[in-house]
């Protein structure tokens, strides 16, 4: 690699080096990636983890959509159509529907989400995304009991006790430990890992647990009880049970002591809490524990958000509609009710009669009943590569890779906005960005509805 002094884009010998790129995969949104580009193609990626690298360098044999595809019946084969036809068909589907669902958004830019909200309002639909079935319960818990958060920079510089609860960053956020929490050297933690204690609570001996100083192999679904036990122990209450979550009480006592003794503790939790039976109650108990600990020392808690802009969907929806997800515009103004206007539920109850899916793969990530209904209704899917969702679509719109093929912005898991740099041009046939084609779709819909452009 030819290194550069603070330069962001350098060209030499027909090669281009773009530094300070952001990896648009998970909520870590690592913004220290460098890419070497030859003939508008990324050939080498520096600093990213294995999954992040795949994001820049597609698998061999991977198909890429570069033209819109249409089929009237889901049993037919797709035929290529022009962009104008595609936008026209998409507008017709959304306008004709009584309850359209505009779903996804977590893997596209803030700018595209903004257009999506406008579109949803115009067609009187519901806007929701992966956030609901990932950390939706965490958002609900925060609404109930508040949030003792911090930025990842603070954790890096200060934390001496790191707790990963119900998550496995070594598999889902591969650089989280090395870049933000455990191994990295920080301002007050010069020696990185040696100055930090790592505790992992997980029913499986995961790759993260294998690296931990202490692994508490708790029983599935007993997190709520464990958090409340820790809260009791920290308050000095006597706990009479011998085991909690299958773990002897002495282990919890030791963890409580370690927590109190830490000068800065950081709890990260994952889908282990939000996807098990007690959902938001477990998260609320975890936040309560953090708040209790803040009376004694300094502690923070943070959900390990999955997609690079899943936090962005919450941010944009909150600033535009006042609600974080599951927002319905059927009456012309935003309404929010979890369980009523959330994607999995509306699809399962067959309340949606058309769907636009962008930058998400509900066909792969929703339970079968919801996917069944997706197969039954007109479905528009915008993606870069074929996915289980595009297999069920009537109309496929080729997506642009935000943050690689166009400039954009996103929110990292700790709510820090990050600017995404453009590295290469989008392939021929694709629009300059997702926000761009959504804006065009908004215009077509407006024209059809006879509204003036606002």
């Amino acid at each position, binding site marked *: 690699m030819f290194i550069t002094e603070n330069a962001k884009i350098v060209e030499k010998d027909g090669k281009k080096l773009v530094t300070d790129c952001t990896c648009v995969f998970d909520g870590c949104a690592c913004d220290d990636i460098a890419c070497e580009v030859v003939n508008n193609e990324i050939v080498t990626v520096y600093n990213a983890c294995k*999954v992040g690298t795949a994001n820049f360098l597609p698998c061999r044999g991977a*198909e890429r959509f570069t033209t819109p595809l249409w089929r009237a019946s889901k049993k037919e084969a797709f035929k290529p159509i022009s962009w104008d036809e595609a936008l026209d068909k998409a507008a017709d589907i959304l306008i004709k529907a009584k309850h359209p669902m505009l779903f996804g958004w977590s893997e596209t830019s803030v700018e595209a989400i903004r257009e999506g909200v406008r579109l949803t309002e115009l067609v009187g639909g519901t806007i929701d995304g992966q956030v*609901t079935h990932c950390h939706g319960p965490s958002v609900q818990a925060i609404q109930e009991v508040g949030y003792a958060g911090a930025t990842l920079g603070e954790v890096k510089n200060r934390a001496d006790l790191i707790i990963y609860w119900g998550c496995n960053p070594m598999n889902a956020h591969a650089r989280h430990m090395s870049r933000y929490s455990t191994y990295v050297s920080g301002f007050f933690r010069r020696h990185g890992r040696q100055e930090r204690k790592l505790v992992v609570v997980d029913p499986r001996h995961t790759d993260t647990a294998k690296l931990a100083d202490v692994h508490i192999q708790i029983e599935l679904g007993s997190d709520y009880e464990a958090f409340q036990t820790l809260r009791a122990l920290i308050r000095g209450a006597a706990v009479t049970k011998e085991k909690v979550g299958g773990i002897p009480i002495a282990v919890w006592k030791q963890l409580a002591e370690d927590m109190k003794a830490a000068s800065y503790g950081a709890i990260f939790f994952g889908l282990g809490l939000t996807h098990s039976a007690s*959902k938001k109650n477990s998260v609320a108990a975890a936040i309560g524990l953090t708040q209790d600990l803040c009376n004694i020392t300094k502690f923070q808690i943070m959900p390990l958000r999955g997609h690079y802009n899943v936090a962005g969907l919450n941010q944009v929806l909150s600033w535009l509609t006042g609600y974080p997800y599951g927002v319905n515009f059927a009456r012309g103004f935003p309404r929010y009710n979890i369980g009523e206007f959330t994607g999995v539920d509306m699809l*399962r109850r067959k309340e949606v009669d058309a769907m636009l899916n962008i930058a998400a793969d509900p*066909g792969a*990530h929703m339970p*079968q009943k919801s996917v069944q209904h997706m*197969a039954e209704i007109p479905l528009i899917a915008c993606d870069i590569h074929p996915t289980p969702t595009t297999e069920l679509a009537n109309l496929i719109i080729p997506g642009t890779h935000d943050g690689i093929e166009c400039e954009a912005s996103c929110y990292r898991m700790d709510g820090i906005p990050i600017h995404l740099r453009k590295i290469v041009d989008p392939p021929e046939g694709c629009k300059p960005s997702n926000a761009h084609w959504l804006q065009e779709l908004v215009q077509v819909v407006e024209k059809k509805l006879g509204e003036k452009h606002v």
Partner: protein
Amino acid sequence: MPAIKIHVTSGATVPQGVIIKGGGKKLPDYRNVAAVIYLDMADFKRMGTFPGTAVEVRNECGKVVVSSQLTPDGPHPGIAFMPRGPWANVIIGPETKCSGCPQYKDTVVEVEPVPEKAPLQMADLMRQQYIDPLK
């Protein structure tokens, strides 16, 4: 070969992430990394099979054929792991209890060896599960 009852949790894995992000969901690689159930050795003994055998995973939501592999994260007898994806989601309960979020962790299933079968590729699975039943 007996069927066994087991608790399944699902989640992300690195190999699956690499395929997904590399745009390989239509390639056989996706099936190889995601149409899998990771079991503990003790559970293989209960079934009387060895890792690599195709198994049918089923409950009241549906049934799906995947490959059974030895868990790298054991021991956790009685708990199985499936990478998230269209195969696992055939058996995940769709109820959210008004939370918007299904219970992806901790689903009870029956696992039965079916050595004569093989897991379907993504496109075939989607067609068989969702498109073929359409009128």
